[in-house]
């Protein structure tokens, strides 16, 4: 089997599982400053799958790609600590405020700069937006096959990869040609732990901006001169040749009208079949109670 080149899409998210009382601002938006940030849990599963493939196919390269503010460089460091070969930060103020469409556009621009690649892995969804849209959108824009809800990669040949998908009522085994994109389900193995020597090796990894903005001591700069691998590549709008109208707020058609805190009072549920009548009935109901439309 030839070595693969794998790109892992990873996002830094607020830790919504440990929400305190001040997690929301009075206007209903997330108070990001008050929430600790973490590696999006599903993306850690994706990283594990990538590293697992690297264990199985010697010579495979795992590249972590993230987009976010400067502090998202933690994602790249975490990737290094656990076994990634390379990390790229897409970071520029002008990318701010992106919805899933602008995000996938930006990521795809980054991915194209990293081409050629065999496999793109990402978590099924992020715990902040919970849309599960970015992965599939990237695949569409790259015009490559996508396999969602992946639990396990069963086997591969030079041209084909076979994976198991975790669905609501069972599993499905599918094959895809390379290159392809997979989103990874949380039922896949949890990510391996940090590796002692790698933590010691990469703990001083910084982006150029981080080196500039901090009260960086002389030693750290010297170390980066001596060990170039510590400098995390950082790409801005021009580096990936992005169109301004397609990134950030300008490139985001999604507009949040309002955010409400919903407390569920009843736990009743309705089971609908996949028949046209049932679906029609549900849509009608959702329009009537203004959930959609």
């Amino acid at each position, binding site marked *: 089997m030839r070595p693969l080149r794998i790109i892992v899409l990873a996002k830094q998210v607020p830790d919504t599982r440990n929400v305190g009382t001040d997690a929301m601002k009075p206007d209903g938006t997330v108070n990001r400053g008050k929430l600790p940030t973490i590696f999006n849990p599903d993306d850690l599963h994706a990283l594990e799958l990538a590293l697992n493939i690297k264990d199985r196919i010697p010579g495979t390269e795992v590249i972590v790609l993230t987009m976010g503010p400067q502090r998202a460089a933690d994602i790249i460091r975490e990737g290094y600590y656990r076994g990634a070969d390379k990390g790229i930060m897409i970071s520029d103020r002008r990318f701010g405020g992106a919805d899933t469409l602008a995000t996938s556009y930006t990521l795809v621009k980054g991915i194209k700069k990293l081409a050629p690649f065999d496999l793109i892995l990402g978590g099924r969804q992020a715990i902040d937006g919970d849309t599960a849209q970015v992965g599939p959108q990237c695949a569409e824009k790259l015009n490559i096959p996508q396999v969602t809800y992946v639990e396990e990669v069963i086997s591969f040949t030079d041209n084909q990869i076979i994976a198991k998908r975790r669905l609501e009522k069972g599993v499905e085994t599918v094959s895809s040609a390379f290159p392809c994109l997979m989103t990874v389900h949380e039922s896949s193995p949890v990510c*391996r*732990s*940090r*590796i*002692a*020597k*790698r*933590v*010691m*090796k990469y*703990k001083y990894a910084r982006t150029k901006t981080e080196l500039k903005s901090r009260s960086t001591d002389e*030693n750290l700069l010297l*170390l980066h001169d001596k*060990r170039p691998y510590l400098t995390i590549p950082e790409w801005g709008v021009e580096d990936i040749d992005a169109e301004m109208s397609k990134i950030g707020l300008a490139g985001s058609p999604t507009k949040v009208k309002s955010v409400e805190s919903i407390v569920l009072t009843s736990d009743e549920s309705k089971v609908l079949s996949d028949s046209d009548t049932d679906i029609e009935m549900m849509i009608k109901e959702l329009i009537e109670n203004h959930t959609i439309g």
Partner: protein
Amino acid sequence: MDNFFKDTPDFKFHLENPIVEKIIKLKERNFIESESYDYAPINHEDAIDSYEKVLNIVGDICAKTISANAESVDIEGPKIKNNEVVYAKGTSENYNALHKAGLIGMSLPRKYGGLNFPLLPYVIAGEMIARADAGFANIWGLQDCAETIHEFGSEEQKDKYLPRFNRDGITAAMVLTEPDAGSDLQAVKLTATFDEKENVWKLNGVKRFITNGDADIALVLARSEENTADARGLSMYIYDRKHRAVEVRHLEKKLGIKGSPTCELVFKDAPAELVGNERFGLIKYVMALMNSARLGVGAQSVGIADAAYREALKYAEERAQFGKEIINFPAVYEMLTNMKVRLDALRSLLYETTGFVDISKVYEEVKRERSLAKEERMEMKKYLRLAGVFTPLIKLVASEASNTIAYDSLQIHGGTGFMKDFPIERIYRDARITSIYEGTTQLQAVAAIKGVTTGIFLDQIKQYDSEVLEENDVLKYKLHAMTVLYEKIYKKVELIDNTDYLDFHSRRLVEMAGNIIMGYLLIINSQRDESFKRSAKLFINLVSSENQEKYDYINNFDLEDLELYKLKEPKIS
């Protein structure tokens, strides 16, 4: 907070002990390896930061994997299948997690793939692992054998065996005990004979109670000199399991530490390599190995005590009786606070001892590379002496205290604690072995009494006294009074000048010294970190009455009274 390193700020505190600076400087030879290894520290702060980051990984694995597996490992235990020991599923998971995280061979030099860590962070890791699962801590702790090969093995042996620890995650065993050679290892009978034809040593005989006996490599104590019956006929060998020349005849069924396989082994012409020189097996190499193992049991005991304390605290905060949580009752909070106070004292002594061992070991390491300057030689000698008596002291007091703390913790659980429903019943069973293996409490007293008779303890007490600041005068005077009692009563024992009388009271004397030492350490720690203040005050109150009791007992005990205790004239076999 799901991390055993992060939830115990004491570890960071002990890593910042002033002595650590000297240890790191020596261990890292002025940070020269940062030129050739990308993970070697560039300076002191960098080294400490690396220790903390790596211990964070250990703490994470302890919380998420090892402690989560502890119950199932206790129930499932190891098995023999096709003459091989198969660990419980959780045990394998634990070991794999530590191996994959690159944590095996922590203290080995980098050229053998190790992390070149001093003993201090390694012992902290051992304590955390014991808190998570005391039985598993044995399998982890047996990497001490690598240290012994590093210290006494040939260059060829080091190149052959040491890289396998970090790279392949091999396990190790110390194969010493036999049916008739337990505490008295001089009686070892397993034979080592040199096969001239094959140019190899062959081992034959039976070993019993061998922890992790089916390990990848084993350090075996064997009789190489025919017609000898004492320690001078014993040598040490490395046996590699790949030879498949040892039968695992039996696994012991035990009260506690059930996940750790305790094997009976039959060596059948097992090929082995001699370590170091013939005849030095017991008197030099096993002694060194045992000392690390004793420090390891000290750490294991403190980890168990911590686990027991946390279980008790959690239970007492949740359990309500008579309309309030039981933690509000004096009888309960007294027990809890005393547990915590003792835990702080034990941990202080553990890391003080670790510092002594660390610095003497690192001097020995340096000595193999270059000759030491005069002050360095003096210092090495001083710390070797201290390590020699502090090691049995911590083993003795920590193992005994872990048992009483586990006892009290179970007591706080009431009837529930006696059932299998809470972790405390496992912790209670696991604690029991600590005061027995690697030398019983009674044998630790025999080793530690040298600290009393040679005055090492007293000198060190005076050293500590000089470090106490004026603000702590009140506590210091209490310790002065305890020291006076200790000196007085030892004078009496010394005057009586009778070996049996000294042996009879040795544990009491050692414990009196230990109490004073721990009292001082808590005061000195409180000068760096206020949070030790309460423990310092309460511990000194607690042990000053204990020491008074021991003093009275010895003081009222005449030499003739010894006769009243003797049940039988010894029959020398």
